């Protein structure tokens, strides 16, 4: 009781005696989550507008004699003639480490029943991306834990790498695996007192779910919880049942949460799952606001919608926080059509894409990464040296294999060189198969790829390669931990390490049947 009285006394002390000025307007119509208001002559673009009953909205259309406000929340109690007032504030969300392990809505309010968010720092949802001067080149890797990606399409801290593919091709799985792998790496470098080893930069994750089924989001949360990744992750949920305004805001709110890490010398990863639905929700809002429709009925600024969002992911230099925000936007294509409006837009904005193919997925090649169509424009600058050494030629070899495999279907008489390329290709495909939620550490990947490149899988039947890879993987973890530590150091594979790898793989091979 006394604390309540103290709180009231503090509030009374804080009360100012001066006059409060507000700019007001009256609702002339409310429909489909959009309110049109008369008045509000001093309203700013993107300003928060307060409606009766504690409902807020954002002013998105400033017209000659009316203001179009997108209502965030329940608009069923708003009616014509209700008074709304400007707040003088831009929409802001709580940010900081207090959000780790939490599930929040598009406004940063908790929806996981774990109590209020412990954070008193607010960041605006819309913010201009870092300019040219504060940026630094991307040269530190983000280990996704997925061999096909880390070896052939390396992603760097501060990069924007698009994950694109048809429905049910494993796009979300790649994103979740990456988040889980960040948690695994963080735990690996965590000391007993909860701090991290000197020089280690932990990676925090933000998963933004836009327009997804609630059941899918629940499954994702469960997977992260089970893998112990939730403690390093914040989930921003704007499910399909949420109003379009929240779905439109959610990625920007997530970006604001990620910017906190970037500006404070930390590294963060943000997954936008997915931007196709985000564009659709923005289209819905724009059409209701009667903005002119363009291609596929999207408004003219749909490119700017995604470019301003993704430009906020960057790596900044020492004078500007020395942090990074890596983005993994997801785009769902229809029947593999990457030339549709939104996919082409986002492809051109991002620094590369991981393209997932339905055919590969159905053939059992999972993750169904199409090596030919996937690219990372940052490239090997963001790859550890040892990985660069062993995986440098992989992409070319697989491309050659795919080309020859298509021809090999027609003829039976093949020359020895072609046969050898095909046989190696078959084994490489098997090597890169990886079940979901089982990311591999970089040093384990290096050891496995080294063994493949050194020809140790040559005499193993293709059907047994997956089992052999798994067996070798387990062998390295259980019996050759010191060698893995050596590979983890990040340097090139020296002749001595090469010899050790040789001896280890030969030892394994003697026992493998």
């Amino acid at each position, binding site marked *: 009781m006394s604390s309540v009285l103290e709180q009231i006394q503090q509030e009374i002390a804080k*009360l100012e005696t001066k006059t*409060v000025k507000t700019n007001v307007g009256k609702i002339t119509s409310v429909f489909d989550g959009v309110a049109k208001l008369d008045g509000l002559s001093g309203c700013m673009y993107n300003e928060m507008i307060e409606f009766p009953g504690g409902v807020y909205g954002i002013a998105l259309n400033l017209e000659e*004699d009316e203001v179009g406000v997108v209502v965030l929340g329940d608009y069923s109690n708003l009616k014509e003639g209700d008074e709304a007032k400007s707040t003088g504030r831009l929409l802001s969300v709580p940010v900081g480490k207090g959000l780790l392990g939490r599930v929040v809505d598009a406004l940063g309010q908790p929806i996981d029943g774990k109590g209020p968010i412990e954070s008193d720092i607010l960041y605006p949802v819309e913010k201009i991306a870092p300019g040219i001067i504060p940026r630094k080149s991307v040269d530190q890797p983000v280990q996704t834990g997925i061999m096909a990606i880390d070896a052939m399409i390396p992603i760097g801290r501060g990069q924007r790498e698009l994950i694109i593919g048809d429905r049910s091709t494993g796009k979300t799985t790649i994103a979740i695996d990456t988040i889980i792998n960040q948690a695994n790496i963080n735990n690996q470098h965590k000391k007993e007192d909860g701090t991290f080893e000197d020089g280690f930069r932990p990676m925090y994750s933000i998963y933004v779910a836009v327009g997804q089924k609630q059941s899918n989001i629940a499954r994702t949360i469960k997977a992260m919880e089970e893998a112990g990744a939730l403690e390093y992750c914040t989930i921003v949920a704007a499910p399909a049942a949420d109003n379009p305004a929240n779905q439109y805001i959610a990625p920007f709110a997530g970006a604001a949460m990620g910017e906190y890490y970037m500006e404070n010398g930390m590294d963060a990863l943000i997954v936008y799952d997915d931007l196709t639905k985000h564009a659709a929700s923005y289209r819905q809002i724009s059409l209701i606001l009667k903005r002119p429709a363009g291609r596929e009925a999207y408004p003219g600024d749909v490119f700017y919608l995604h470019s301003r969002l993704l430009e906020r992911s960057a790596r900044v230099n020492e004078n500007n926080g020395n942090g990074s925000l890596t983005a993994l936007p997801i785009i769902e294509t229809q029947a593999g059509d990457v030339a549709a409006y939104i996919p082409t837009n986002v492809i051109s904005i991002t620094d590369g894409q991981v393209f997932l193919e339905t055919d590969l997925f159905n053939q059992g090649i999972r993750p169904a990464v199409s090596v030919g169509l996937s690219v990372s424009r940052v490239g090997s600058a963001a790859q550890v040296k040892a990985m660069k050494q062993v995986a440098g030629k992989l992409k070319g070899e697989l491309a050659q294999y795919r080309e020859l495999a298509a021809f090999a279907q027609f003829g039976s008489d093949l020359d020895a060189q072609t046969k050898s390329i095909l046989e190696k290709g078959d084994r490489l495909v098997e090597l890169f198969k990886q079940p979901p939620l089982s990311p591999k550490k970089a040093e384990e990947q290096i050891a496995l790829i080294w063994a493949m490149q050194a020809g140790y899988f040559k005499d193993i039947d293709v059907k047994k390669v997956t089992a052999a890879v798994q067996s070798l993987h387990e062998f390295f973890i259980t019996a050759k931990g010191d060698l893995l530590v050596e590979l983890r150091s990040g340097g090139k594979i020296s002749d001595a390490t090469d010899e050790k790898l040789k001896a280890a793989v030969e030892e394994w091979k003697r026992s493998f049947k």
Partner: protein
Amino acid sequence: MAGSHHIKDFAKKLVTLSLDADGQASAERVSAVLDALGQNPPRDYKKLLKQYSKYLEVEVSQGQAKVEFAGPLGAEQLTAIEKKFTEQYNRKIVASTVENPALIAGVRITVGDDVYDASVATRLALLEQNVA
């Protein structure tokens, strides 16, 4: 769409014609404008009248300070309010009073879309919001 722009432009011109030398909407001028329009009704007459009425309402509200008060409010204070807002908005502001006991004490002044609140009721509402 082009038609609606035309109506808006026309309505704005009519509002300008309805203002007297002090920049205040005058009843005489408004009736003159309405007479002239009635004698020679333009296309979309009804729409035009609606738009004219809307703009005129905004114009009138911008020249008035609606003073809601609870407790005593003297003539001197009212004059001071008029003077203050006339300076602030750089146009003649005429104050009108409405007693509103719901304010408990203090005043709330509305000029156009702007609301200046110095009432106890609003302070208490703010306090309730912050303590909750």
